[in-house]
């Protein structure tokens, strides 16, 4: 009762030329700070992209756009996430971070644009691309009537992994994330931080080459956060690639090698952290880029008690 999979073999020759980027026809290329920008108006020739593209980018987002009714949530986002980088994505609420990451991971079909994971088109060859990725989506439920241990096991078996391998990895992951004591508790009874950690474990179980984590540190306590950071840093050190979205500038500045500032569905700046912050702190640069920050005026009554 199984169906043969009709998928081309992984790109060993020239990477597939994806569908013509209609995005460029309707969307102006965003005014990106010229750091790590892809020429997304031109025909996509992935192997001959910008200079640092020579080792294939772990994640290559080209002209992704999505509209929900009247609202344009993502307006032509292009990003190159180099393999082996720790990439931060920062932006105010409603900037389109989650929408962009959903489209890049195959959870939300984009109106325009493509996403390539190590050269594999997420929307043309989804099953293959998803094997390379570990995803921690934000704001989705888990199968929370399973115990933590069962959930991570489930996640491994769903990807067709061998049961013994899954078993040994699950216990290592639970130990690394300090969840051993609650391994047999139903996930529905977990705290918010524990839930985040068990979801992260589910994303790590198949040893993906790219990790896409949406708000991984939200509601996680400081000890666990530094735990997770350690895991991610050694993962990057051994050649993996991580992309995280976050509100916490400090964390991104300390942790990430690269950063993209996103607002209003566009990329305002992207590149290595030092390039983007350009001498000032990331937070200052962020406020400067995104605008706002007129917080000294008004609210005088708040000082009168």
């Amino acid at each position, binding site marked *: 009762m199984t169906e043969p999979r009709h998928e081309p073999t992984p790109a060993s020759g020239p990477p597939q030329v994806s569908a013509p980027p209609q995005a460029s026809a309707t969307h102006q290329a965003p005014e990106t700070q010229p750091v790590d920008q892809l020429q997304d108006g031109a025909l996509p020739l992935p192997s001959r992209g910008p200079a640092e593209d020579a080792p294939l980018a772990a994640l290559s987002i080209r002209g992704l756009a999505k509209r929900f009714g009247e609202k344009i949530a993502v307006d032509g986002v292009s990003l190159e996430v180099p393999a082996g980088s720790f990439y931060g994505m920062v932006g105010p609420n409603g900037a389109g971070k989650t929408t962009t990451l959903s489209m890049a991971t195959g959870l939300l079909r984009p109106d325009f644009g493509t996403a390539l994971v190590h050269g594999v088109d997420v929307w043309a060859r989804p099953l293959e691309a998803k*094997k390379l990725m570990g995803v921690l989506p934000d704001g989705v439920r888990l199968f929370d009537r399973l115990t933590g241990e069962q959930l991570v096991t489930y996640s491994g078996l769903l990807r067709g992994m061998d049961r013994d391998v899954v078993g040994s990895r699950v216990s290592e992951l639970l130990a690394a994330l300090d969840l051993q004591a609650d391994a047999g*508790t139903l996930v529905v009874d977990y705290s918010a931080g524990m839930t985040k950690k068990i979801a992260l474990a*589910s994303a790590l179980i198949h040893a993906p080459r790219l990790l896409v984590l949406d708000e991984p540190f939200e509601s996680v306590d400081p000890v666990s956060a530094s735990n997770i950071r350690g895991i991610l840093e050694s993962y990057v050190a051994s050649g993996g690639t991580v992309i995280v979205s976050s509100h916490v500038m400090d964390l991104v500045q300390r942790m990430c090698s690269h950063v993209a500032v996103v607002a209003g569905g566009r990329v305002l700046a992207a590149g290595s952290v030092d390039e983007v912050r350009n001498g000032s702190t990331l937070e200052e640069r962020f406020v400067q880029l995104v605008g706002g920050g007129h917080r000294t005026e008004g609210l005088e009554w708040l000082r009168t008690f």
Partner: protein
Amino acid sequence: MVAHLLNLKWRLLLNGFKRSPWQLVGMALGLLYALGVLSLLIGGLIALRWADAEIAHTVVVLGGAATVLGWAIIPLVASAADMTLDPARFTTFAIPPRQLLAGLALAGFIGIPGLATLLAALGTVGTWWRSVPAVAGAFLGAILGALTCIVLSKVVTTATAGLASSRRFKDLSSIIVFIPLMLLGPIMVGIVDGVRGSADYLPVLARTVSWTPLGAAWSLGGDLESGNLGAAGLKFLISAATIAGLLLCWHILLQRALVTPPYSGGSARKGGKLGLFALLPGTPAGAVAARALIYWMKDPRYAASLVIVPLFPVIFFFSGSQSGSYGLLMLLGPLTAFMMAWSICADVSYDNTAFALHLAAGVRGIDDRLGRALACLAISLPVVLVFTVGPLFVTGDWQWLPNLLGLSLGTLFTGLGLSSVISARYNIAVPLPGDSPFKKPPGNVAQTLAVQAVGMGVLALLLVPELALVAVQAFSGGPEAGWVNLVVGPLLGVILFVLGVRLGGKWLDARGPEMFAQLSVNR
């Protein structure tokens, strides 16, 4: 402050209507139904005006007492307490407790159940439209009685808030409450028989109850009509004291609840028990089946549909024993097969956004479909076999066995195949994970009904061969058609099952993200 709270409740009620026109239509239908029941009730109470005073007193007191009990119990078991003005939401506003209590109590009357209770209570004024003191007493009693209902329900919900917020209690109560609901018919008949047998006893019971907090208020009109001034005075004191006592309890409970929010954590448990994940094959489809089976046991929304399964034969047997013919009992197997196969139509909708894991992990559609269908099959196949063969022990129509088996198995497999297709494409409005199976689901109910209706039509078409063979035996009387059905039913069923799983898998592969987008709307 009290006016503010009343205004707030009113505004919340109105804004609830504003969310979508469909909601308005639904509410209008509900309102119409409530109005119908209410006008019948009030009409009945007014008609009692011409009945014997003793009978009127009995009816009003017992009915009133039952209403008070209902207000205490129903919010608890149905987890349907009206929490729009949850006191916990007012913790950060320094509202004086007396005003908070008064406001919350009065706000309890704004809303359909509160208003209906108040109006029905005022209907007793019509019952005692016999003399001025009786009318005055009935009016006072109605107000006191309705107030008792509201405050008692507040006390009960506040007292059990900690209990009710624990997941285990919620899971259990939402399943257990199905049992009396399903057995409503037999229970009603039992009660009616009991009442018929003890008609003389009821007035005595009413007189006794009228001296308790449950019935004291409802008794005022009757006592004043029959001139028992002393009794009426005492009962007024009892009901007033009841309300005062309840208010005091509520006050104390609220103050305690406001500073100690309920703790809902369980104790930590070590791992090492993979359960079904260790038993079923370690393939994607096997994992999906293991997960689905665990959910059939542990998620109250699934478990509730399992709990009612053993009640089916009870109901069928009961209706058979009422009518004297057990012919309907023979349909038990096919009907159960249909119910259980149909239930996984909503499988992906039950997952809600947890479906993201399947999508992100790149599970092939066919593995997803197959796992879910096999989990349902593992539970329903033995049940359907037992329910098909079992009734024949009662009826003795053994010549029907092959035909019924064919029909049941055909229905089960065909239904599973069709459900696999439907749940791959259409999102069905179901209660959210963790909600009570009774809770009104969010989402597009109209689309759900349309999908269900069309789906059942398609199922009927797919089952035409099996149904025709049943008809042939019914007309010809010979068992030959039955033996044909025993072959045709399972064979055709399994073919359609395979086709359904494949087609559903293909659809899910193509439209997984769209399905997920639909699911994310209702979260």
